[in-house]
């Protein structure tokens, strides 16, 4: 809201009269009480929104987890199997992608903070990240094929069911992240990328890492 200038508030005539008692129980700040919205600007919505979104996603996966634990305990038909080793490669890919994204973000941020106009050409790192992300999803798919070849299908056993469901859910969210990344690159090209969008996207991406590490641990301990 910096775009508009506004005059300092006029202080009106003081009414001496008493007001109602118990006026909501909060104390009156006469004027410009809270300036967190205004010139100094609030944390832009994107970076708040992304946290809220991550909270929701966390909740969903918490639900999946509790379902998994309850279902495992529900009966003795839980079949253990060894995770396809490609998962570990995928993990490394994802971690690296986070790193490259961070490099890209830093470089763009540097330009942004220096001058109004921002880097026209999106740094190479973004494309690397994109590629790694795609590789990760593809890798997950390979992992599925591996399980299929072992005769472990979605309905074979609760353990395999949960494996597919969890990996699929996570892969879907990663695809969302990829979408965001593409958007960032496009905006950079059009040079109307907002810092907050960039940060939000990268937070989300790192969150996908953390989530995946958690899932890997869960699967590793349960499968």
């Amino acid at each position: 809201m910096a775009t508009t200038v506004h005059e300092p508030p006029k202080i009106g005539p003081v009414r001496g009269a008493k007001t109602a008692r118990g006026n909501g129980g909060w104390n009156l700040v006469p004027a410009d009480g809270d300036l967190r919205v205004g010139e100094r600007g609030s944390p832009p919505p994107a970076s708040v929104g992304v946290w809220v979104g991550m909270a929701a996603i966390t909740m969903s996966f918490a639900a999946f987890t509790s379902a998994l634990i309850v279902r495992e305990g529900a009966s003795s038909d839980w079949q253990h199997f060894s995770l396809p080793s490609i998962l570990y490669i995928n993990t490394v890919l994802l971690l690296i992608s986070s790193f490259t994204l961070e490099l890209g973000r830093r470089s763009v941020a540097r330009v942004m903070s220096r001058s109004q106009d921002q880097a026209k050409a999106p740094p190479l790192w973004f494309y690397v990240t994109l590629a790694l992300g795609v590789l990760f999803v593809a890798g997950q798919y390979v992992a599925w094929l591996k399980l299929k070849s072992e005769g472990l299908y979605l309905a074979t056993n609760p353990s395999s069911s949960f494996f597919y469901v969890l990996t699929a859910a996570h892969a879907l969210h990663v695809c969302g992240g990829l979408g965001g990344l593409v958007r960032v690159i496009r905006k950079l090209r059009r040079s109307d990328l907002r810092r907050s969008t960039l940060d939000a996207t990268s937070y989300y991406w790192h969150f996908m890492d953390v989530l995946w590490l958690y899932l890997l641990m869960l699967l590793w301990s349960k499968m």
Partner: protein
Amino acid sequence: MAKFFAITIVVIAIASAIPIVMHMWPMPQDISVHGPLIDEQMADTMAEAGISFLAAQFILAAFIWMFSNRSREAKIRRFPGGAMGLVIAAVLLVGTEVLALGVFGTKAWAAVYFTPPSADAMPIQVQAGQFAFYFRYPGPDGKFGTIHPDKIDEANENFFGLDLTNDPAAKDDIVAAEMAIPVNKEIHLLMHTKDLGHSFYVRELRVQQDFVPGLDLSLHFTANKIGKYEIVCTQLCGLGHYNMKAYLEVMSQDDFNTWLKQQAANQ
């Protein structure tokens, strides 16, 4: 308008209370040993809930009556005690109230669920299925034959999927479509469901328990009044849910023995 509204609230409140006070649709007479605890608890709760209901509605009505459509000049007056007073009052009054209810309620709950059935309790198995109950008595050997779901064949009345050729325990099991129990004898009811979630509800026994697929629960109770009562299903189980019922006959020990002989003969 406002005064009329206040009156309406009072009238509705009283009208709502009358059927309760007059016992127009009372709970049926209790026939179980643990029942009195529940009934007592019900009465206490009714008293407390009723009082708070009437009090709240009356005060609401009174204030609407007193303070609506006042002149613009009328002064806004402050509620004596203010918010904090109310909060403290609420926490103390309601807090102690619900705490008391909770503590005493626990007694009734414990009477049903925390006490193990006595050693000489009579085991009866009830199997729920769309949309009927079937009851099984272990017979002379006192052992239930194992249930083989793949052997369940209603067309030939093998409701429990018993293996009558190979399973000695199953041979003398007595299966009936109604439940008969001797009076003043503790019953240990083993609950099994054939297909979906159902529930076992006998108003007079003050007993309600769901059947959970894949999870065999058990109940125990003692009926102390002879008579014929209805067992109904209270867990939505499909199109015949409303018609899923059976009869519970509480008999004297002798009548029960003869009844059991009859059933044995029908097998």
